[in-house]
């Protein structure tokens, strides 16, 4: 992976009157990387996206885009960014071709390159057949694709996508996700979403934001490793008292799921499954089932976002 830094955000904060939408966020985006921005509704995702793309001036802090300060030289910096806001910014009265041509031109592309860029963007987003149709007559999914095509038309270094798969059907979602993966190979992509599988499938790095603060930040690899095999479901041939089960090696807690089924939570995750299996067999409890469970991103997400809920919740002004 190329380690060229595309975005460097420092001490970003944004207030709306007395509410603090985003509070002192710091992060970096490298080329060839997809960063998932995760958070519940109103956590400040959209506000952060708007600040990175120059749609909103931060109250404090700075954003550097490809080494250019976004606040001091907005024109030069914005040329490196493609942005798809929450609602695709499409002119419904134009055709897809007209609209994409307009987008290419306002991104200061030369006239001779425009039609090639339009064709390329249409092809990548699966819009080749609808070039002549009015955007207003297209389905929501296609409008969303037009929105993505608009963001990539000038092949910017950074692509910021705010909830790109909202309102799409499962097939379209799959297509868009593979498109995002593809884009992530040569560009830097920031993906904001509250859909967890999306992050798991597409992103290299996860940032979880809650009440305007960055509460978790790690690579997807570490995340999966860290939580792999930390719990397991067992099924036994007979009812065993709970205190006997919790006496098994490395078991931190036991949760009864159904008659003869329990979920075990381990306090360390090295080879515990083997030892537990051996112990159960040695005890002659009649092991019928043993399924190691991966603590999913969802659990982590819920852990992080629901803890300290009383902590001053900042509302996100999505406008």
């Amino acid at each position: 992976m190329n380690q060229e830094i595309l975005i460097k955000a420092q001490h970003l904060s944004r207030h709306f009157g007395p509410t603090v939408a985003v509070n002192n966020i710091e992060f970096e985006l490298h080329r060839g990387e997809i960063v998932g921005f995760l958070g519940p509704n109103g956590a400040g995702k959209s506000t952060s996206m708007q600040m990175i793309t120059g749609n909103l001036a931060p109250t404090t802090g700075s954003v550097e885009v490809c080494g250019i300060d976004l606040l001091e030289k907005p024109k030069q910096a914005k040329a490196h960014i493609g942005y798809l806001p929450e609602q695709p910014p499409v002119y419904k009265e134009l055709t897809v071709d007209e609209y994409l041509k307009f987008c290419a031109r306002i991104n200061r592309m030369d006239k001779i390159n425009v039609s090639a860029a339009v064709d390329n963007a249409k092809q990548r987003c699966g819009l080749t057949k609808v070039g002549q149709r009015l955007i207003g007559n297209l389905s929501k999914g296609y409008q969303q694709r037009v929105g993505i095509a608009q963001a990539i038309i000038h092949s910017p270094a950074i692509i910021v996508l705010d909830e790109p798969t909202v309102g799409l059907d499962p097939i379209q979602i799959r297509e868009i996700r593979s498109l995002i993966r593809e884009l992530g190979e040569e560009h830097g992509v920031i993906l904001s979403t509250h859909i967890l599988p999306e992050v798991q499938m597409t992103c290299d790095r996860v940032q979880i934001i809650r009440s305007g603060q960055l509460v978790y930040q790690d690579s997807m690899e570490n995340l999966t490793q860290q939580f792999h095999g930390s719990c397991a479901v067992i099924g036994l041939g007979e009812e065993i008292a709970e205190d006997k089960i919790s006496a098994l090696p490395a078991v931190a807690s036991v949760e009864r799921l159904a008659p003869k089924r329990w979920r075990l939570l381990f306090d360390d995750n090295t080879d515990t499954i083997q030892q537990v299996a051996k112990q159960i067999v040695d005890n002659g409890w009649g092991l019928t089932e043993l399924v190691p469970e991966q603590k999913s991103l969802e659990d982590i997400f819920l852990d992080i976002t629901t803890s300290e809920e009383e902590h001053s919740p900042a509302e996100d002004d999505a406008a």
Partner: protein
Amino acid sequence: MIFTIAARELRSTFLSPIAWTLIGVTQIILTFITGSGIENYVRSIQPNLHMYLTPPNITEQIVVPQYMWLAIIMIVISPLLTMRVFSDERKNKTLALLVSAPISMTEIVIGKYLGLLAIAGIMLVTYTILPLSLLFFGELDFGLLFSSILGVFLLMAACMAIGLFFSSLTANPLISAMLSFFLILLMSILIFVTSESPDVFSLADISLFQHLMAFVSGLFSTHDLMYYLIIISAFLILAIRRLDSDRLQH
């Protein structure tokens, strides 16, 4: 960049029925006005031409009233032409597209304003066919014709700048149209304020129509030209500041 935005604006305007309807209806009204002007001239002025020392020409009698009426009609229709310029972008959340692109707010506003001026120009060209048709029957005073056209164009340009500003305030086109209509109407009727002496400032001096009078009497006055340019730049600057303030901390 500016012209790309202007072209898009012009195109979208003519893709909606509003512009076509307004231009068509105005054309019908102006045709009636010109027609009655001709009738009046033929019935009451032509038979008595020998009685005048300097006989009134058809440009003064027929063409100038047509442009004066056009100016009055513009009070009503220019807010309808400008109301959606920024309101629609706000309502449909398309403003983010322009703001995220490497263009400044000034370029966006001027681009859109040029699109509006192009509409005004197209309207004036279609309405000028009427006076030109009089060339079949007589001669026109082209100096007076052009200064009238210029005067009305400046008035339209000022109305468009006012409308553009109000459109930048709200996501609701109706409110933007109402506000610009009231301000344009107010600034028009100020012409009826009488002043004690021409040297003293009176409210009539800020009337949009007061400054049209020189142009429709055939006088090209830089004083009046400056008035319109100041009004236009003031409202454009206000619009730029308004849109910039969306981004900034309040």
